[in-house]
């Protein structure tokens, strides 16, 4: 996030797009409700009638994957009404002329035709966002998990810069990150193209610096992304894999294909706290420690670095994951001898400029947001205040591109995916929590009454969902939370996993798969429709 979470409460206009905030980030949603109570305008752009729409002044249901057209339409109106921030554009940005040219192709009528959102709503959003003093954008995977995810994010950055709503309190472009430490894993260089703090591996100076720090020779070649690793296992260019606390056999698109790839590995080691679907395929599995059983730090979505502290011992002979990595590395021939996570953190501060001023002693008083370049620096809750990282903010002139897979005769319905409130990702943690499992122990699809009628389905009946990748059987819930022509499904339930169906088509730049749109067919399944399932659905 460019701004901190508490700032949301003081925004005058909150534009939520592609984030089911109350389900995926409940404590951020509570800030939205507080802002609303203080008089903020709430705009939600989401194909589903999600819970946060209950406080929305405007809710629009754009067609799946049409976000660039929607945002371009909004920006077209802002320009034609002269609501853009001319001084900000002049002083802080570049590339405006090209954007202006492209936006001419997106008058509200055209944007409406592509997105299914009315021209009146497009105008209302444009006026509310541009004319409010403090306007903030919140987005999540509904924006990123597309074959044009990078374009979606850049479009939101365009909107924020066009209206000068960045680098100021309660404004900004704010991705809500889905995992507790996805920010930290990126910051620490858990990516194939960068060392810690996003220092690119292809830059010779960076490489030399890390070669000196680590006393080694490093590769100048950008490594494989996760999907490329899976392809590598299949074509034989990757022979072995070590997986730390992840479950790609449940979470990746087209999981049938991923499981097959993992089985191809000559050697697969997994470190995890449960026997996940991925661990079951492994040659060797190491029992790790949960967050409650070790010391360390997480970096949350607002870049706050927070401490975790050991409360209890790991079960049986399980060990903290940092210790397991040291053990494997040392036996492999690369000795790693760190006394404690604090010692590792000291090395992190040494090689990571944005963490340079952080220490366990300082974090004892509470979280500090990076960049924190020196011991006397208070941390940075708001990014891009006086300048952008690259100097001037660059506008990207972007054209709408449709999703990779569209509905056709054979697969007439579009599937989109997401989370349900009691569960989390592939459910490794939540299915092992009795309270959460009691809330919801079985997955289902949401299907609109029109489509349900077409197939002859009623709530509680079982159905088969078929895509080009595979098929799953699950319960149907007939509801207008989804629009006609669209069904929704979660990826929490391994026995009926949406990722059997999802499309592994990738964004060309960041290689994110298109989880949010794929074409499917829904079939009624009468023979497996038991009275128990019906009773559960009616309860």
């Amino acid at each position: 996030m460019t701004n901190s979470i508490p700032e949301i409460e003081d925004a005058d206009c909150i534009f939520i797009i592609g984030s089911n905030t109350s389900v995926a980030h409940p404590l951020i949603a509570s800030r939205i409700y507080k802002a609303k109570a203080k008089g903020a305008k709430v705009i939600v752009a989401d194909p589903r009638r999600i819970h946060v729409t209950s406080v929305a002044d405007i809710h629009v249901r754009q067609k799946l994957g049409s976000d660039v057209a929607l945002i371009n339409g909004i920006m077209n109106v802002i320009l034609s009404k002269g609501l853009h921030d001319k001084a900000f554009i002049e002083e802080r940005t570049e590339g405006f002329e090209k954007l202006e040219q492209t936006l001419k192709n997106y008058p509200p009528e055209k944007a409406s035709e592509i997105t299914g959102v009315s021209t009146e709503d497009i105008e209302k959003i444009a006026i509310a966002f541009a004319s409010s003093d403090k306007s903030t954008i919140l987005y999540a995977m509904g924006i990123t998990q597309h074959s044009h995810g990078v374009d979606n994010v850049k479009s939101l950055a365009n909107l924020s810069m066009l209206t000068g709503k960045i680098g100021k309190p309660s404004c900004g472009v704010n991705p809500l990150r889905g995992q507790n430490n996805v920010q930290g894993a990126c910051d620490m260089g858990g990516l194939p193209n960068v060392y810690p703090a996003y220092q690119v591996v292809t830059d010779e100076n960076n490489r030399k610096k890390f070669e000196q720090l680590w006393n080694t020779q490093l590769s100048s070649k950008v490594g494989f992304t996760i999907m490329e690793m899976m392809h590598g296992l299949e074509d034989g260019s990757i022979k072995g894999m070590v997986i730390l606390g992840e479950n790609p056999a449940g979470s990746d698109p087209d999981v049938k294909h991923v499981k097959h790839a993992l089985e191809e590995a000559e050697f697969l080691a997994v470190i995890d706290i449960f026997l996940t679907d991925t661990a079951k395929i492994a040659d060797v599995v190491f029992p790790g420690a949960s967050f409650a059983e070790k010391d360390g730090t997480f970096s949350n979505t607002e870049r706050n670095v927070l401490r975790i502290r050991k409360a209890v011992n790991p079960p049986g002979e399980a060990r903290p994951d940092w210790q397991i990595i040291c053990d494997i590395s040392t036996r492999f021939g690369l000795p790693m001898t760190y006394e404690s996570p604090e010692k590792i953190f000291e090395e992190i501060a040494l090689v990571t400029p944005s963490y340079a001023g952080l220490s366990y002693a300082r974090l004892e008083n509470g979280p500090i947001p990076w960049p924190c370049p020196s011991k006397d620096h208070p941390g940075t809750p708001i990014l891009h205040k006086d300048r952008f990282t690259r100097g001037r903010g660059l506008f990207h002139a972007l054209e709408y591109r449709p999703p990779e897979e569209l509905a056709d005769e054979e697969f007439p319905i579009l599937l989109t995916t997401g989370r349900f409130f009691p569960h989390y990702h592939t459910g490794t943690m939540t299915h092992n929590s009795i309270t959460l499992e009691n809330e919801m122990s079985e997955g289902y699809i949401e299907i609109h009454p029109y489509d349900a009628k077409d197939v002859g389905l009623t709530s509680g009946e079982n159905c088969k969902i078929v895509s080009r990748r595979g098929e799953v059987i699950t319960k149907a819930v007939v509801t207008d939370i989804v629009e006609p022509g669209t069904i929704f499904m979660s990826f929490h339930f391994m026995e009926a996993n949406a990722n059997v169906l999802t499309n592994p088509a990738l964004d060309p730049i960041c290689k994110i798969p298109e989880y949010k749109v794929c074409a499917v067919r829904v079939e009624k399944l009468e023979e497996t429709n038991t009275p128990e399932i019906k009773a559960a659905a009616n309860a």
Partner: protein
Amino acid sequence: MKIEYVRTTCPYCGCGCEMLLETVDGRITQTLPSKTNPMNQGKLCIKGWNVHEFVQSPQRLTMPLLKKDGVLQEVSWDEALNFTASRLQEIKAKHGGDSMAFLSSAKCSNEENYLFQKFCRVGFGTNNVDHCARL
């Protein structure tokens, strides 16, 4: 009876809610929200309130497992570590460091992610390290 409250951070979503784990004689008895943290202000979601349940699940892994005759079996740390080290050495020697791939974790700590990418980059001379950020 020894009762302790340990201040820590929730492992679920990216909000970063701070919480107190109440332990009685080395077992977590409940999870309470931190009232002083400006982020969650004394509140937690349903997942946060029940976070100790998965920690103490009987399904947790407690021993290293090694596949023998197609079946994962409990083995000693020594056996699992030695097997792993020798397989990694063999693959590196035979196919080169670029034939290995490493998946880091958005659920593990900064310290663990740092060590893991260092192991990959220094131990194998490859940048084949990624995690689920793009998923």
